[in-house]
């Protein structure tokens, strides 16, 4: 247990950034052996590069309106034009920025909240632990998308509101993981030894226990990013997420609620839908690979 978890806090958890000479790192080696995870990581990195350099990759301004509209894909407009006359390819490329960043920001917010609350509950235990655990249970009881829909309809839909609401509601799973890690680890010898040597609580939490929880947190955050991207896409698809003219993969599919568009203009809805699917799949592959790499007990 502790052996595998100690591995988890080494920098090898970010395989892409590693130099080749560090290949002896067992986590990295196990991750690289997971073919789908490597493919997922390559897809994901490609999408991130395209998102970061969107203005360079996009052939047109995403909001520029051309002379015609509803055009089939052509040499000038690889994915055709939308119902207003904007270049679909440029919009899809720019949308990747929005969609990916919503996922990353939302998850970052709730990882911080979940880790802080989970550490407090797991380390100190007692009444505080019971109260926090019950609160987490309460938030887990609502189907997340329903609660988000209500809150967003009240505070108004926008990219920032989506990030914040997803971030504020998403913490219970991370909380549970961190709390569980603290409960098992706080009684272990190395923590007890630290305590016996007079280490402060903060040192025990940040230097001894938390680094050992990084693996499970990272895995959960990876899967969480996939879920957050899906949720943003669903909200935007329903018109309650990122608002046009700003493009997100989800709101590019809004037009596809009409049968005419579905039937005769597939270039409007297939590319953004396929990209949501591809990015979520890639992230889930990476998550699977990370989990297997960080916790060898699950394999074989």
């Amino acid at each position, binding site marked *: 247990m502790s052996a595998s978890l100690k591995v988890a806090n080494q920098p090898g958890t970010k395989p892409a950034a590693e130099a080749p000479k560090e290949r002896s790192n067992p986590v990295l080696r196990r991750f690289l052996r997971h073919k789908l995870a490597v493919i997922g990581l390559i897809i994901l990195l490609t999408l991130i590069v395209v998102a970061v350099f969107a203005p360079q990759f996009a052939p047109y301004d995403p909001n520029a309106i051309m002379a015609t509209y509803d055009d089939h894909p052509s040499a000038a407009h690889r994915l055709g034009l939308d119902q207003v006359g904007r270049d679909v390819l440029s919009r899809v490329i720019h949308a990747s920025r929005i969609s990916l960043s919503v996922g990353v920001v939302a998850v970052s917010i709730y990882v911080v909240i979940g880790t802080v609350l989970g550490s407090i509950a797991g380390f100190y235990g007692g009444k505080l632990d019971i109260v926090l655990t019950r609160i987490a249970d309460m938030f887990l*009881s609502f*189907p997340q*998308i329903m609660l988000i829909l209500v809150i967003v309809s009240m505070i108004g839909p926008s990219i920032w509101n989506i990030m914040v609401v997803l971030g504020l509601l998403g913490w219970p799973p991370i909380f549970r993981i961190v709390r569980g890690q603290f409960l098992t680890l706080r009684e272990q010898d190395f923590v007890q030894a630290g305590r016996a040597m007079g280490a402060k609580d903060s040192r025990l939490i940040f230097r001894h226990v938390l680094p050992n929880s990084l693996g499970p947190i990272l895995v959960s955050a990876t899967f969480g990013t996939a879920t957050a991207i899906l949720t943003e*896409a669903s909200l935007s*698809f*329903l018109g*309650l997420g990122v608002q046009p003219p700003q493009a997100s993969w989800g709101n590019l599919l809004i037009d596809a609620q009409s049968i005419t568009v579905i039937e005769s203009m597939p270039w409007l809805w297939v590319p953004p*839908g*396929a990209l949501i*699917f591809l990015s979520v799949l890639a992230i889930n592959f990476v998550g699977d690979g990370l989990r297997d790499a960080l916790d060898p007990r699950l394999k074989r």
Partner: protein
Amino acid sequence: MLSYLVKRLLIALPVLLGVTVITFTIINLAPGDVVDLLVDPNISATDLAALRESLGLNDPVPVQYAKWLGQLLQGNLGYSYVNGQAVAERIGDRMGATLSLSLFALLIAYLIAIPVGVISATKQYSLIDYISSILALVGVSVPNFFLGIGLIYVFALKFQWLPVSGMYTLGGDNSLFDLLRHMILPAFVLGAGTVGQVTRYTRSAMLEVVRQDFIRTARAKGVSQTVVIYKHALRNALIPVITLLGLQIPNLLGGAIITEQIFSWPGMGRLSIEAISSRDYPVLMGLNLMAAVLVVLGGLVSDILYSLTDPRIRYS
């Protein structure tokens, strides 16, 4: 066993109470109140104030909560801002459609997932295992609106095998066959995530059971592979898989919102979209509250089933 049941119920109760607190808080934060929406705009300000007073809207918030909870326990979820209909009634009208769709989705999902998971596990690391593992992840990753639109494009528009949307053919005979035809696509979309989850779960549960001593014993006795897998192993692997049923409720209720919207399915999911566009907060919170209660009960049932079917489990 009994003490575990009691303990588990005692944990569920404060969670349910907390759920009502969250629901009430959100309704209270929502802009506007009943008076704003139901009352004749020409009424004077003093009369409005009097009306608010008589409805208890000026009471301290905890008192309002207590009254609201009292009504809730008697089955009164409040009244719709839109047409004044009782929320419980509005939701009740739509429940059947969502329930039948969800059950059909679960049925399809389990019928696909369990055999695939079992085959995947018995042929671990084979091509079949590889493909089904990828497909399981695909099921979890595909956005249900994209899957829905894609299926409509292929099966309803290109080949015209199945209807595009709705629950019955307009002016049709409302037969069970007609209902099933309308239900196939949305149920598959709603169940896709469950297929992925249950496949993965069945596979790992099977792999775990197959490694145990009693399976080795059965094999050593010369029991055939088929009997070992389908009689000895599957029975034990199914326990955790079946209890997963109770935990599918949040997925199904959340997924129903998008699925029902795409397929114009007249259920609770579509009601929540309608309620959002008309800012009908009592209906919205009624839906949320009901969903949360169902989720808590689902978790409870799943835990109890688990402890009943697996005597090895001892809860402290």
